[in-house]
């Protein structure tokens, strides 16, 4: 009785207390039990959010910052709840938990809310004074172009960069960020129609905002200075140059706006249009897919004098079609716009990378009436390409124009984001039968894809585009980019490997067949086809044989800033350091991750709850021994409403029929569904190994003597059951909460140890893991410890899972002795699966 008074004394904060009535004590118990339940629910929710974060990273799914934010918040909020509830249960104890929690939470906040450092500087820099070191001010493209211009023999057009300081000023003066954030917080990034609408709204907001007066004045001044330097009648191209892109990994090809032929009157509008294009649907979906945060991208611009181009094109300083030792030149009459937009048919020359840059192949468009590139020009372009590759240290994708005087201008140079795709087998494997619909074209990205045809001509069509359909378009315009992530393949009537959409399809590993004549006329909406880009053909139906050639699609988020944030956040969330509750290091102050905190709180909550029962409600006679014929002792402790009201509480024994805890009944049914066939017959060596381990393993002392005879406890309420089992040398725990509320429901299983050496123990754990996964558990393995969970499912389904656990607890006893024998392993595996399936089918 003294202990009861001690406890209540602690609770009320006085040292001497009068006897409390039974009602009052029951009431205290109720309060504690409620905390316990809330803690369990929070534990369940925290673990689920952790699993979602881990799965997103492991499966290479596309995830956004808001996903990371919301799931991390779910984890922290629920752990906060666990701590609060545990501290309530423990009468204000575990003070250090809050310190550990605060420390970890702050670290997570710092990673998630990290802001980019802003550099203040000039609003404008003449392009001939720009180099790579100014990337923070000028953005990637202008920094690269300025740097290229410093090289001997490379011409770039005159012009100036409009810096990040200028665009920041514009945003701040107009207070644009809060408005933009508000609009996007209410946007579903996976709904293209919604994205189009919101993107339009934000772009209008930017375009309608006035440029700060002084900035406007100086922008005109820069333009006028260009006039003085050059002809009186110049026009400029206003080009985007975003800061925060990592062009080595992501091309950002064609995502932003370029305004060509801009005169003085159109200058301000053109600049704002370029700034606004940061929020185009295609730019935003691309960033989402590739793992870039919108807030990390700052738009800068470049105003470059227009080159009066007679011929323009793209060079790849290393052939992207799989050829070794060559480079590619794509070109067409006039400006390069038609090539990168994929609207022009292009000519394609291949040259050797080494001097004297011998021309290996010329693919001319027979319908192009214009004079082609001369051999001298081709060689000069090859020289420029190799010079840029050497200077920048990686293969380059170079945009260029030639003026009427024959002078070559470099307009852009950026790393090739996807170096190679193997075009070796091009056209080698064609099924010449009635399945063949179309043949020819060029491969923009190798591989094969199958799905129903969906022809896209307008934005409205985009909104209807179904997942895994074959995207068929006339021109491979960059504006179709948002569909690439959900398409099975891309087919276009025009375009080349050098187009922006082709570049992006390679980044996503999407099979792309371009320049395929008559595609929009021949292919019929809804008809299932197989597009074989590698061999340049389209077939009726789905041809699995062709799909087999595909490599695994690359994860577009690999190496991205958002992926890195998730990796860093997960380091503070998921690792479990506190694994052993018996260890002296199992302490609140030593929790290093959110997972440690959940583990600690959960462990201690069970002790607090159980402790209460011991202290009062179930003192001495509290545990009731189950009447059963198994050679093991099973005891039941009623936490609340787990026994039938008719049960005589003075009795020392209880029949299972008097238990009304639904999870416990399910476990019990699983335990008794089949008779245990007894321990396996073991070779002397196998038995020897067990004994040897028993004497060697200090973790088993002094438990060895008592372990065989330990009582096993069920802690129950109507909806809850916690079963701790020490069967022989291993430890297992089943815990379940199955109420009418789906969010609360869960079943977990922990298993650890065993007397056999590592390989045998792991053998059994692997068998358990395999069977549990087969029956829908989420399984986590660390060494010889196993954690399995399933939650938020229908009640009957979860009762079924409890039966599986009950079955396994009984039938996997002592089998580690034979786990090293593959035949025995297989025999047990087959038997277990068969019996479990039979047991579940009887439900």
């Amino acid at each position, binding site marked *: 009785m003294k202990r009861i008074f001690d406890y209540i004394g602690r609770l009320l904060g006085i040292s001497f207390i009068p006897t409390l009535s039974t009602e009052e004590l029951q009431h205290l118990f109720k309060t504690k039990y409620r905390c316990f339940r809330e803690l369990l629910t929070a534990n369940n929710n925290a673990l689920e959010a952790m699993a979602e974060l881990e799965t997103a990273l492991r499966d290479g799914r596309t995830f956004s910052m*808001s996903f990371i934010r919301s799931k991390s*918040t779910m984890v922290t909020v629920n752990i*906060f709840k666990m701590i609060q509830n545990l501290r309530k249960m423990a009468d204000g104890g575990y003070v250090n938990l809050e310190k550990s929690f605060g420390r970890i939470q702050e670290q997570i906040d710092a990673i998630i809310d990290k802001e980019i450092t802003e550099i203040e500087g000039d609003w404008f820099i003449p392009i001939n004074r720009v180099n790579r070191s100014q990337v923070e001010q000028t953005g990637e493209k202008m920094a690269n172009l300025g740097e290229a211009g410093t090289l001997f023999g490379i011409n770039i057009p005159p012009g100036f960069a409009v810096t990040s300081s200028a665009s920041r000023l514009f945003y701040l003066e107009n207070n644009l960020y809060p408005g933009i954030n508000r609009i996007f917080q209410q946007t579903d990034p996976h709904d293209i129609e919604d994205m189009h609408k919101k993107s339009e709204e934000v772009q209008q907001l930017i375009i309608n905002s006035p440029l700060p007066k002084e900035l406007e004045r100086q922008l005109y001044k820069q333009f006028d200075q260009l006039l003085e330097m050059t002809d009186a009648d110049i026009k400029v191209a206003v080009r985007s140059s975003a800061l925060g892109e990592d062009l080595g990994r992501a091309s950002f090809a064609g995502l932003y706006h370029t305004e060509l032929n801009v005169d003085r009157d159109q200058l301000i509008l053109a600049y704002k249009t370029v700034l606004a294009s940061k929020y185009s649907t295609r730019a935003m979906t691309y960033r989402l897919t590739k793992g870039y945060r919108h807030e990390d991208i700052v738009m800068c611009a470049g105003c470059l004098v227009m080159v009066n181009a007679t011929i323009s094109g793209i060079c790849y300083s290393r052939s992207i079609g799989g050829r070794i030792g060559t480079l590619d030149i794509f070109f067409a009459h006039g400006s390069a716009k038609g090539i990168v937009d994929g609207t022009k048919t292009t000519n394609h020359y291949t040259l050797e990378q080494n001097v004297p840059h011998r021309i290996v192949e010329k693919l001319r468009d027979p319908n192009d009436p214009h004079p082609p590139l001369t051999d001298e020009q081709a060689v000069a372009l090859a020289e420029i390409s190799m010079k840029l590759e050497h200077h920048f240290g990686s293969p380059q994708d170079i945009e260029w124009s030639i003026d009427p005087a024959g002078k070559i201008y470099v307009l852009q140079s950026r790393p090739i984001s996807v170096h190679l795709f193997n075009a070796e087998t091009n056209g080698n494997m064609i099924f010449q039968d009635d399945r063949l619909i179309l043949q020819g074209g060029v491969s923009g990205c190798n591989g094969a894809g199958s799905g129903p045809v969906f022809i896209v001509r307008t934005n409205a069509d985009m909104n209807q585009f179904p997942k895994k359909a074959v995207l068929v378009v006339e021109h491979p315009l960059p504006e179709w980019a948002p569909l690439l992530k959900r398409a099975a393949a891309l087919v276009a009537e025009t375009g080349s490997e050098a187009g922006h959409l082709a570049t992006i399809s390679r980044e996503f590993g999407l099979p792309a067949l371009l320049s395929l004549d008559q595609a929009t006329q021949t292919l019929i909406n809804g008809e299932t086809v197989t597009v074989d880009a590698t061999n340049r053909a389209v077939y009726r139906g789905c041809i699995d044989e062709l799909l087999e050639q595909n490599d695994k699609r690359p994860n577009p988020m690999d190496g991205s800033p958002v992926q890195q944030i998730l990796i860093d956040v997960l380091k503070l969330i998921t690792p479990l350091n506190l694994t052993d509750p018996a260890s002296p290091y199992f302490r609140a102050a030593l929790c290093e991750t959110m997972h440690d905190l959940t583990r600690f709180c959960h462990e201690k909550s069970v002790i607090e709850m159980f402790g209460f029962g011991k202290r009062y409600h179930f003192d001495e006679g509290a545990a009731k021994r189950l009447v059963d014929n198994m050679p093991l002792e099973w005891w039941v402790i009623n936490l609340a409403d787990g026994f039938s009201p008719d049960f005589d509480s003075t009795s020392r024994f209880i029949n299972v029929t008097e238990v009304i805890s639904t999870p416990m009944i399910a476990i019990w049914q699983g335990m008794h569904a089949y008779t245990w066939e007894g321990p396996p017959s073991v070779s002397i060596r196998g038995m020897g190994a067990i004994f040897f381990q028993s004497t060697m393993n200090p973790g088993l002392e002094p438990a060895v003597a008592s372990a065989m005879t330990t009582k096993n406890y069920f802690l129950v309420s109507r909806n809850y059951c916690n079963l701790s089992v020490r069967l022989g040398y291993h430890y297992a725990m089943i815990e379940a909460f199955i109420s009418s509320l789906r969010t609360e429901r869960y079943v977990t299983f922990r298993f650890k140890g065993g007397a056999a050496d590592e390989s045998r123990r792991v053998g059994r754990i692997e068998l358990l893991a395999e069977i549990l996964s087969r029956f829908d558990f989420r399984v986590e393995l660390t060494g010889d410890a196993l954690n399995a969970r399933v939650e938020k499912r229908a009640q009957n389904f979860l009762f079924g899972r409890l039966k599986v656990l009950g079955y396994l607890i009984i039938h996997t006893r002592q089998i580690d002795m034979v786990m090293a024998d593959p035949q025995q392993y297989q025999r047990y595996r087959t038997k277990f699966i068969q019996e479990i399936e039979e047991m579940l089918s009887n439900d």
Partner: protein
Amino acid sequence: MTNGRPFKLEAALKIHLLMVDDEPDFKEIIQKRLSRMGIQLSLADCCVAALETLESQPVDVIIMDVSMPGIDGIQCLKKVKEQWPQIEVIILTGHASVKSGIEGMQGGAFDYCLKPIDVLELLEKVELAAQKALVNKENAKA
């Protein structure tokens, strides 16, 4: 998150719920769904209106948006908890942030829900909050 499986509302049917949010469309949707389930529900546009409601009638559970004009949800939560500690509050927020979530919980919120709302998830949280609010009520009597 949800799979449309029905569950039993018990405690939620015995309580009076107040919803505080400045977005009329959102409020209307939630009101329709909750009323259809048989939950007794009042509405308020802002913190001041919410406090007025609390003065005039008993409320057990509040659903409250964090971002509201005037007094924001976190401040409002604190005011409510100061005067009516037995009321359970579920915080809603459109923009997840670890900080705001914890602030809400530290301010004594029962739970935290992200917009866009999964109605089934919200209902389950309401049921749990209602269960707790009923216990609070009993305790207050005792």
